[in-house]
């Protein structure tokens, strides 16, 4: 399993691997928003948590179809399915690799992007905390969507439509943590809800993903 994780990270870092795709998309969104809504810092500070969370979510979505599509095309998914690794392990590793190449860089870069949207000073720690807690759920849910649509030509549209509704709870509670944090309110309840969603998806969805992947490989 470690070997698969190392391989996926290597592939992501090398030319054409797609590392940084999500990050640059996130950057584009946060740079363009002030141009769109005007440079008024009070307004920007008000919408910053929501925009940052939305940007992170769409950045995650952008790279989802690569999770299984490349392995499907070159046949390695079939070979992995006949290897000693359990399919649940394969999907867990794939989700982890996706988080490490997309979610983690977003978490680390988010304070900088918060600055671009004049996020209030109290908000930074809560923004990072909410992203650290929430983005794993985005990767795990996204892996499920990718497993559902693997093998479909241009399956990205279908996958987005399937995955977006499942992303809504994470977005609501994640953005709520960041908003409350920025306004100096108590964040415990939405933070616990967010952590609960993430823990639940990590516990359950790999089994569902492995099941649909096996069906899709037939």
């Amino acid at each position, binding site marked *: 399993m470690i070997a698969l994780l190392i391989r996926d990270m290597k592939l992501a870092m090398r030319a054409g691997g797609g590392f940084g795709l999500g990050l640059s998309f996130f950057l584009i969104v946060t740079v363009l928003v002030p141009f769109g809504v005007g440079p008024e810092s009070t307004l920007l500070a008000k919408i910053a948590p929501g925009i940052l969370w939305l940007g992170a979510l769409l950045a995650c979505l952008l790279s989802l179809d690569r999770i299984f599509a490349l392995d499907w095309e070159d046949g390695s998914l079939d070979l992995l399915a006949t290897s000693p690794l359990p399919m649940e392990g394969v999907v867990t590793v794939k989700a982890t690799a996706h988080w490490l190449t997309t979610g983690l860089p977003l978490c680390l870069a988010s304070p900088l992007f918060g600055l671009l949207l004049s996020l209030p000073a109290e908000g930074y720690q809560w923004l990072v905390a909410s992203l650290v807690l929430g983005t794993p759920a985005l990767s795990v849910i996204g892996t499920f969507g990718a497993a559902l649509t693997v093998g479909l030509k241009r399956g990205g549209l279908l996958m987005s439509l399937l995955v977006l509704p499942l992303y809504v709870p994470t977005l609501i509670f994640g953005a709520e943590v960041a908003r409350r944090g920025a306004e100096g309110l108590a964040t415990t309840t939405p933070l616990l809800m967010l952590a609960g969603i993430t823990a639940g998806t990590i516990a359950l969805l790999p089994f569902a993903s492995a099941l649909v992947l096996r069906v899709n490989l*037939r």
Partner: protein
Amino acid sequence: MTLTVKNLTISRGGIPVLEGLNFTLAPGKALILRGPNGVGKTTLLRTVAGLQPPVEGDVICGPETIAYAAHSDGLKGTLSVSENLHFWADIFGTKGIQNALDGFDLNSLVDRPAGALSAGQKRRLGLARLLVTGRPVWILDEPTVSLDVASVAMFADAVRAHLSEGGSALIATHIDLGLDAEVLDVGPFRAKPRSGTGGFDGLDESFL
């Protein structure tokens, strides 16, 4: 490790393609599958490899004994030849790739990215993967596609060496590999169209 196939019926896209297949593959033996294009050789191999469930019948085989090589080689173009092989060796928990490099004459290409190999070299690398799996039963789907005469001989030698170590191989191919192997023509096992349900048999399957 003996592979036994009993009264197997297989389907592609929900429609039965081959039925009533019976064969046994004992250690040290190879079985060559022949049959016209589209008859269901690949589907049969995928079923035996466990990638899809049979409609009827059983595939009896020990756990974790099968190494499957499909039409596509499962190589990553941005990884080098040795990285590709090391990856599969790690996945299958075996040590060392030197044997595989020697067996398919890949020593001069170890540091070349797999994406920069020719079609025949890629195939050789894909077949070298079989040697690092350490699994006794090889299931090979058209293994000689895009190989030249010398490479086909190299491949035949690898299969012979594998058989002499007590392994076995199930190979779908159209060419003569020069192996001392039984030949099974799957043509006569073509499934008859199912009557009564008028081809709606596969409906559940296609909705899954």
